[in-house]
């Protein structure tokens, strides 16, 4: 799994949630360039990404991920004010998204579903 996020408190919270899913081997990066490179090199099963990482749209990362492996489950993390963008991401193939910070816990529900579909 690739986790792309640059905001400190979200990273901490998500890392904590991910501890409950030892079956996912997690690579984390806060750098967009590194994320692009990783997505080009590796077909990740799951990608969790912020919808904005240092000014770059998560939609772009979604496309990279899907290009490499169209079965990838991409989960977007978004702010309340970016929810329209999240809806767009869904239409372009994102698996689902969570809204930070109050609803971050929903990530664990979504990951449970992902774990089901990706045994």
């Amino acid at each position, binding site marked *: 799994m690739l986790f792309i996020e640059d905001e400190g408190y979200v990273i901490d919270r998500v890392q904590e949630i991910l501890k409950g899913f030892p079956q996912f081997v997690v690579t984390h990066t806060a750098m967009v360039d590194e994320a692009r490179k990783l997505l080009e090199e590796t077909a990740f099963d799951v990608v969790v990404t912020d919808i904005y990482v240092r000014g770059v749209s998560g939609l772009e990362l979604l496309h990279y991920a899907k290009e490499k492996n169209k079965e990838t489950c991409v989960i977007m993390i978004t702010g309340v004010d970016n929810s329209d963008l999240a809806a767009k991401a869904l239409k372009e193939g994102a698996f689902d998204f969570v809204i930070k910070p109050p609803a971050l816990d929903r990530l664990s529900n979504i990951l449970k579903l992902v774990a*089901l*579909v990706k045994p």
Partner: protein
Amino acid sequence: MNDLTKKKSAPEKKSATPFPSAGAPTIESFLEPIKIPESENTGPLEPVVMPASSPNKASSERPISRKDRQRRDEAAARAAERPFRELDAQAREVYARNVSIAKELLNQAGQPYIEKYERIVRMAELNSQTLFENSLFLGYTNYATADNYLYAHSANVAIISQAIGMVMGLEKSLVNFLGFCAMAHDIGMSDYAEMVSSAERLSDEDYSSVMFHSEVGAAKIGRLLDMDYRLKERAQKVILQVHERGDASGYPNSLMNEEIDILAQIVGIADVYEAVSHPRPWRPAIHPHTAIKRLIDREEKGFDSKVIKAIIEVLSIYPPGSLVALSTGEIASVIKINKGSLTRPVVAVLLDGDFEPVSTRLIDLMEHPLKGIERIVEESELVARNPNFAARQELARWWVEW
């Protein structure tokens, strides 16, 4: 009477067909288990009718090309714009025909001669078309019939099987043949009528005799007068194999993976899903989400992963009819699946967070990013929180002729 045929003659739909139009279907194409497109193997089964023009080769190997898929999605999107009421009325009408055909077939199965094949295939054609253009149709498979559960069961398994066949990219005529096999898969059960309606779980002895229904059913296919004998052979094989499982745990012959006809695998998984998600006289239904989860978790053993994947694509993780709680606390029922999304269907909000009825409204969770499905609501919870509403819901799932 024969308005089925009338209905289906809508030639202007041709360009939007969900299936490839790679030449006319031949009987031969039914006779052997087909390879599904991913396997890239068209080898010896392909009747050599295609003039070997290489640019077309790719599209003949992959029954649904990207373009076709796109066209299909666009058509589906267009259809989605039709008003809800119109779609619902059409879905209801087509479903009613399915139930009455299933009823006729099962009731006449005891006669020495049956003439039903052509009619059922016409029905299957209409099902394919309706699944393609009417996203509410699949939700009708939640209905159950009270007088004999096999009526709705046979219709539901046919519709779900066809939907699976379509997402797997099976050829059009094969999907319709699949619909026939699914509709007829329990034809052998008509010999066990008193057990079907029994409110008690079967004894071991009864159970082992019911296990013969696959054989009885396969034999009954022989009585269909209006069916080509070569088609009969494959249909008999499929019906005989519906309870076979890839890990050899099935019956009657404990076959392994590739020995089981792909159509039998499809009917098999649709059969299991339908059975556990619907009530039976001797047990209640389980939540559709739990039913699909069991398939994914492989608690129902021996299904091939490509068939599991296909049924998830058809029904998603929250199948139509699932009662769920939204992130707003409201209680809603899943009405239709949004293609490509496993977790964000269209739902009808029925109750508020305190389980008090509200005026029903539809929410497309794809369009409302701030709302989502939080958890499933079990019937027991509904009964505890709002028994009147639970009773109404329970009544509403029984199909009533009108």
